């Protein structure tokens, strides 16, 4: 029998501490859609997605009402488009079909306008990267990702260079909306195939026909637990408190994932144990770090605090779900976290410190705004640095960066809603032009002699 205090704790977590399910993402394989004919390709992709995901949004809403927990996003991820568009040679057709299907099914984002190029690029991969400015400026809900590196393949520096240029071109193509197109592109190292979170979600080539992946959230619940149960206590107590809380949050994710999968008649994939912040007060990962005793996120000690948080979240969550996957850990997007926004605005948090933090968090440099006149080679070099961290440490890293046209240090970019706002951060004024111009591949690192 559940006690009254347990019932009230759950109700409080949802109503006051902003516990929610961040996303139910349906992964759909598009392999059966590939065809050389453009019109047929459009129809195949559109029909496949709209048929499979017909009841996704309605089912998500039904679960929200029955379990009394908000399910913030219902989304779709598909097979990387460069694979599906290879016979036809024109990936933009897939982007248009994806966008139309997203609107028809009522999901707010659809991910998988993607290419996996860690070792090399096919003609279709190149066409997809070249099409990014058009694809992301003329569609509304399509999200894209490019995997440019892996621990086993090394870093494809040609792809890194192309992505740096693509980001600049996307920024220009969406100049009227503060380069909002850049929010929809993630450049990865060691991308995972079952990530439910946008913008980096895609349904990996090793996945089945269709599955349901669920991304949980709840930074507010963790921060309240630390405030109430671990004030001034040693780190052992901090870690235990985070683990206990992560366990409870993940159990709810597992319940929703299992229910969604059975009601939709689609296999359950994974639960992604991520602490995903939003710009709302009380929903911040930075505030958890500050609750541990840091004056501001970004000061010395932040990397250690984040390492503890990231590890404790995984340890607590992993026993609560039968299959854990995705990115699993703590997200540190600057614009989507009120504590990060404030820390960046007051100068406590620099790009260099964020880079260090990405060595121990779940992903990478996320939702960072930089001056509009940042050269493409500098953006490519930022991507290369981040990919190197991922490659050497066998973890996923990513870059989602916004060079806001016409903006400089002291300005701010406003994206609205869950995307929040971002102060423009300083980048090094020294050039990496000749470094990036080399091209080729950085070889995969040794897996032994680890020091």
């Amino acid at each position, binding site marked *: 029998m559940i006690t009254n205090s*347990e019932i009230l704790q759950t109700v409080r977590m949802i109503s006051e501490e902003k516990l929610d399910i961040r996303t139910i993402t349906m992964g759909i394989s598009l392999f059966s859609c590939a065809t050389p004919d453009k019109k047929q390709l459009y129809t195949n992709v559109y029909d496949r997605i709209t048929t499979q995901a017909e009841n996704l949004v309605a089912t998500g809403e039904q679960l929200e*009402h029955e379990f009394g927990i908000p399910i913030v996003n219902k989304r779709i991820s598909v097979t990387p488009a460069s694979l599906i568009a290879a016979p036809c040679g024109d990936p933009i057709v897939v982007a248009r079909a994806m966008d139309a299907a997203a609107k028809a099914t009522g999901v707010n984002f659809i991910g998988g306008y993607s290419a996996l190029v860690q070792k090399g690029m096919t003609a279709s991969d190149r066409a997809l990267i070249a099409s990014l400015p058009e694809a992301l400026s003329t569609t509304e809900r399509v999200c894209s990702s490019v995997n440019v590196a892996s621990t086993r393949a090394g870093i494809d520096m040609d792809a890194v260079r192309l992505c740096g240029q693509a980001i600049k071109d996307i920024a220009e193509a969406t100049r009227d909306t503060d380069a909002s197109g850049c929010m929809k592109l993630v450049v990865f190292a060691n991308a995972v195939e079952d990530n439910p979170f946008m913008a980096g979600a895609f349904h990996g080539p090793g996945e089945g026909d269709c599955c349901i992946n669920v991304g949980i959230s709840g930074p507010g619940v963790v921060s309240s637990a630390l405030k109430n149960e671990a004030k001034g206590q040693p780190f052992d107590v901090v870690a235990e408190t985070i683990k206990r809380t992560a366990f409870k949050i993940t159990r*709810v994710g597992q319940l929703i994932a299992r229910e969604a999968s059975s009601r939709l008649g689609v296999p359950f994939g994974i639960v992604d144990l991520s602490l995903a912040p939003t710009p709302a007060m009380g929903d911040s990962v930075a505030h958890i770090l500050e609750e541990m005793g840091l004056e501001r996120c970004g000061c010395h000690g932040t990397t250690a605090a984040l390492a503890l948080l990231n590890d404790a979240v995984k340890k607590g969550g992993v026993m609560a779900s039968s299959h854990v996957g995705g990115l699993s850990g703590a997200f540190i997007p600057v614009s989507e976290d009120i504590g990060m926004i404030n820390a960046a605005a007051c100068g406590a948090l620099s790009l260099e410190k964020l880079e260090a933090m990405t060595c121990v968090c779940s992903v990478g440099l996320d939702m960072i705004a930089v001056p509009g006149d940042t050269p493409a080679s500098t953006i490519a070099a930022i991507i290369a640095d981040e990919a190197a961290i991922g490659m050497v440490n066998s973890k996923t890293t990513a870059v989602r960066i916004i060079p806001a046209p016409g903006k400089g240090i002291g300005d701010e970019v406003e994206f609205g809603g869950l995307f929040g706002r971002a102060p423009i951060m300083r980048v090094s004024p020294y050039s990496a032009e000749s470094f990036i111009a080399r091209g080729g591949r950085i070889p995969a690192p040794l897996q032994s002699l680890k020091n």
Partner: protein
Amino acid sequence: MEKKSTAVVTVLGNDYRGIIAKVSAVLAGQDANILDISQTVLSGMFNMIMIVDVSLCDFRELETALKTLGGELGMQIVIQRSEIFDAMHRI
């Protein structure tokens, strides 16, 4: 976990006369059967937890009816399937 057809109703807010009667009337009107009630008033704050059998109900209609009543009374009334509490608090 076995499939249950019970739900938990929590009612929180300022104390009034007749809250239980009003909530019970809505539940009866929607074919929900009350299995357990516990209620306290602490410094003027009313706090009630009910376990109800919802096997004969249209869940969405019941939820809407309770929410409407919550709006009328200025109280927070939430109904949730029991599984979410078992998931969170029991291994």
